[in-house]
């Protein structure tokens, strides 16, 4: 269980340009829950995600993962059980490295990076199988630099890479916002599939009302650094896009 307890985040504290990004936010997310977060720009969604990822530390409050206090654990250590997919479809992969090398790094995300070669025939076979499930023909391009692929292809690969090694939490920061509608849909479908397959605890930020209603087992609306609405799966099923649209007006 992921537990956020009375967390606040203030940027530039005690200065004239101080910004309260989050104020006293508390949230509990069960294992396997797929939480969609909506909110206007500046409502604190990204700050909340950054605090959970360890990219930022809170000004006050605590964050727990399975009763362990992780408030001050640095990002690279949290990556042992947490993966993140960014809005920028190019951010989750290293462009100069081949598809194979990118997958290798993802496969040893939680392990130490040793002086042994891990990209042998067996590993290539495994990656080839995973990648061919996307139906994009990328299994024939494993040795090409990943930077030569399109944003949509790279984002889909990023999602596959996130479950190459053991993962408990998946953070999706508007993963499809920069993609064309078809690529966007494919990325979200891959996300839904791996979340269900691996029983991941997922947080998904989006501005798209249709996606917010279609994906996720719980919906949260944030506003001015607080949680405004918290809607369960049962309620969410009956929610109409028009109703959600009105929340933002």
């Amino acid at each position: 269980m992921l537990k956020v307890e009375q967390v606040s985040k203030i940027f530039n504290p005690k200065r004239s340009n101080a910004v309260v990004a989050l104020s006293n936010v508390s949230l509990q997310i069960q294992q396997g829950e797929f939480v969609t977060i909506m909110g206007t720009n500046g409502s604190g969604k990204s700050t909340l995600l950054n605090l959970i990822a360890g990219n930022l530390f809170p000004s006050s409050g605590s964050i727990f993962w399975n009763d362990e206090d992780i408030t001050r654990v640095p990002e690279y250590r949290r990556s042992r059980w947490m993966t993140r997919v960014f809005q920028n479809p190019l951010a989750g992969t290293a462009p100069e490295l081949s598809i194979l090398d990118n997958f290798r790094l993802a496969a040893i995300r939680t392990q130490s990076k040793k002086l042994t070669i891990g990209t042998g025939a067996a590993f290539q076979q495994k990656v080839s199988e995973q990648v061919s499930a996307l139906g994009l023909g990328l299994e024939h391009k494993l040795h090409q630099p990943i930077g030569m692929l399109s944003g949509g292809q790279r984002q889909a690969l990023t999602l596959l890479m996130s479950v190459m090694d053991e993962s408990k939490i998946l953070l999706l920061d508007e993963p499809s916002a920069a993609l064309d509608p078809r690529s966007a849909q494919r990325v979200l479908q891959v996300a839904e599939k791996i979340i269900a397959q691996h029983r991941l605890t997922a947080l998904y930020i989006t501005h798209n009302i249709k996606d917010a209603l279609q994906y996720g087992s719980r919906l949260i609306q944030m506003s001015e650094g607080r949680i405004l609405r918290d809607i369960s799966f049962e309620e969410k099923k009956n929610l109409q896009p028009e109703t959600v649209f009105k929340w933002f007006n």
Partner: protein
Amino acid sequence: MKIFKIPDITTDGSFTLGAVVTALMLPADMSFWMALPVVLLAGGLAGAITGIIHTRLKVDALLAGILVMTALYSVNLSLMQRSNIPLINTSTVFRFWDQHQLYGDLAVALAFSVFFAGCIAYMLKTDFGIAMRATGSSPVMSTAMGVNTNTMKIAGLSLANALTALSGFLISQYQGFTDINMGIGIVIAGLGSVLIADTLIQMLHIRSMAVQLVFVILGSVLFQMILAVALSLGANPNLLKLITAMLVLIIVAIPALKKRSD
């Protein structure tokens, strides 16, 4: 073949440092086999200091390199106690195959290149090497993949400067002396060589790390040959650094000039 996108100027100091350690140890009747690990360690330490200043103290990588290079000048000078040490009557690594001077030199240079390029090629293919390359390619992604990018940068800069010190070790024995100013502009020679290699690697779509490294070595040979041709055409040796700088400028400017003419 760029691992990190850092033009590391520490090299100007660590190249000389390698030569200085060599010039202190060989005349004291220590064999080059004993000098070699000390040279690598000294260069590695210099690079690690640059890396620590850059990552822990958040100083710009270029400035961190300039600081360590400047400091190394004094370190080198106080180690040497004078500005030049001859290595004429000492047994050097190039006296290994005594009889055939030219072939002997080539064989020694080749043996060192093959051995160290082989080690680096292997290293870059390992999980550690992938993490190091990823650190240069995308720090954000690397951190998310559990790579401590600070440690990686320190390790990479340390390795690079250990190899630069190794070059100083070889050159000082090849030319028969160590001079306090021999490292000036080495960073440009290294940069030029890598850029020539990169152009060829892109042109020929080379993916293998080992072959890419062969091209980097070819790049440095080509670079030195262009300089040698310029000198043999009657260029004033005093203008050598100017010619070097112009050469690198031309290599760097080619993409922009090409774009303009298109």
